[in-house]
């Protein structure tokens, strides 16, 4: 009762930023993905983590189901040039053009520009402070809530 009374009646419930952290492919390095997922959650976002070994289809399906604003892909296995384009294509197919897509992991420099051309907004390599990722998500959402 007290908690309710403290709320100003006009306060609009703001929709939290919804994020999906996904691990495509067979790669099992999930330390970074989990750290990022928790950092986003600590920053006040609603975070869903897919778990390991997700196919592009499963990831895009989850992004749709969870109605996310941002999709964070993590991969360290070197299969990014095979898996990322499929995810991007499927997202376009499903009309998820307004979802921000970012990626992290071990991704060689020469692949970064190709991935950006495809539609991955930013790539965060090893050593990126979590604050940088959080701020980037906040400032670059495509959907305006």
């Amino acid at each position: 009762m007290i908690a309710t009374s403290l709320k100003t009646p006009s306060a609009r419930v703001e929709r939290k930023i919804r994020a999906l952290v996904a691990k495509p492919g067979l790669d099992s390095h999930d330390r970074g993905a989990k750290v990022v997922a928790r950092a986003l959650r600590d920053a006040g976002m609603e975070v869903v983590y897919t778990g390991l070994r997700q196919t592009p289809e499963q990831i895009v399906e989850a992004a749709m189901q969870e109605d996310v604003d941002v999709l964070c892909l993590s991969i360290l296995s070197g299969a990014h040039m095979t898996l990322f384009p499929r995810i991007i294509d499927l997202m376009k197919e499903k009309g998820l053009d307004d979802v921000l897509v970012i990626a992290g992991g071990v991704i060689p420099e020469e692949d970064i520009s190709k991935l950006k051309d495809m539609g991955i907004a930013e790539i965060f390599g090893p050593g990126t402070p979590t604050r940088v990722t959080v701020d980037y998500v906040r400032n670059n959402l495509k959907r305006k809530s």
Partner: protein
Amino acid sequence: MLDPEELREIKEKSGRWEETTLKSYLETRPERKPEFTTTSGFQVSRLYTPADVSDLDYSEDLGYPGQFPYTRGIHPTMYRGRLWTMREFSGFGTAEETNRRFKYLLSEGETGLSVAFDYPTITGYDSDHPFAQGEVGRCGVAVSSLADMETLFAGIPLDKVSTSMTINGPAAMLLAMYIAVGQKQGMAPELLSGTTQNDMLKEFFAQKLCIFPPKPSVKLVVDIIEHCAKKLPKWNPISISGYHIREAGANAVQELAFTLADGLAYVQATVDRGLDVDEFAPRLSFFFAAHNDLFEEVAKFRAARRIWAQFMKERFKARNARSMWMRMHVQTSGCTLTAQQPVNNTIRVAIQGLAAVLGGTQSLHTNSFDEALALPSEEAVRIALRTQQIIAHESGVSNTVDPLGGSFYLEALTREMEEKALKYIDQIEAMGGIFQAIEKGFLQKEIVNSAYRYQQDVDKKERIIVGLNEYAGNETSKIPLLRIDPQLEEFQLRKLRRLKESRNQDLVTRTLEKLRQASEKDNNVMPHILDSVKAYCTLGEICGVLREVYGQYEELVMF
């Protein structure tokens, strides 16, 4: 270790030192931080004196190398007799390419082989499975059948090298292929020496490369231990691994405790199978990480030996001294390497390698400085190997046994490491054991919490990483990286297609059917897996049969 009179005097003098010399010094020169801690968060005192180790009983707690409890080393002469095995983990692309890398490393003075398999192989899929697209040969070598294994070891006599294989879910299949390659070279299985990682428990909470659920996974582990105890006397059927636990985010004490808890579970499971402890325990081996906090790491290795020896003697009533030995392989830490200013990593690797040697390891892999960016280039792996050779031949640390033993700091830290690890082991056992701890997500949670805390410390600069959050400069040194030719995947697929067309299909069907029957009856499946690989059944086919019988593991997703 001291008589009460001496101890009293030291305490008194320490007190006086604090009141006089130290106090006046601190008045004008305060310390850099209010408190100092190890990487795992242990409080570190300003100074250690004999008073900090006064409860240590030299004979009981340290003793002599080659004698219980093996704190100072498992061999009486350690590296004065024989240096550790220098083993560089390698594998990429096709079997042809990795075979060339193996021969290169042997020609540069490497003394043992260590195979990295690609993701499809370690998760039990053939290179032509849809899940394998884009992954073939990327993080290791692709091995889909005995044909690939024959190529991988072509021209390498298996009775002359020891081979370590980082393989868990499909360990039985890869070991069977190795045995079959040996037989084709004319070597009986009893001549083969090496190691299969074959540690499934840590997969469920750390490395997470799982195929089957925990119970059948451990059943397969025990099948291999039993088979090796009877047929491969020189083979280490398992390497109980803390390395991946640490890389996933655990600190040193968690790495130690969770590894030992896994080890205890395997011993129990094998004893429950009906084997005598001394029949198999001498061949159990361990695998740890070495990080930058040199003293903490050395303490971890020493505590590990002491705890293991005690458990084996007291809980499992081992009589053979070898059953009490903790033989270990150490790898320097991948997660401490930075993508920024990568050449700095050579220094980290040297410190970590030194820690492993000061900790009395039997075998060492030193990481290459480019590993935060890619699989190692030939130059980078040569420097990594040279780092070990410099430690061995130039640093002087191999001249005496356990050179840091007796350091007040190290002994206090070894004791603290031991106590904290034992507390964790008690906690796990109180939950009902390792299976329950995994099921509840306890271990996963502990690790992810540590990983997050570490990252926060780095982000807040409470932990300095040179070249990353301090001294970052704007260095843009470019180093040449190993590239995996995407055409290798095509080449591997063609090879696999040819194999499937040319093999005796009837034999394939028959051996797989026999394997299915054996696995349904809960028999030891090793002999049937051996028959299957010899019939050129593929890895994916064999794992497919077992997936149908055992089911597949569903990850407990949490962060």
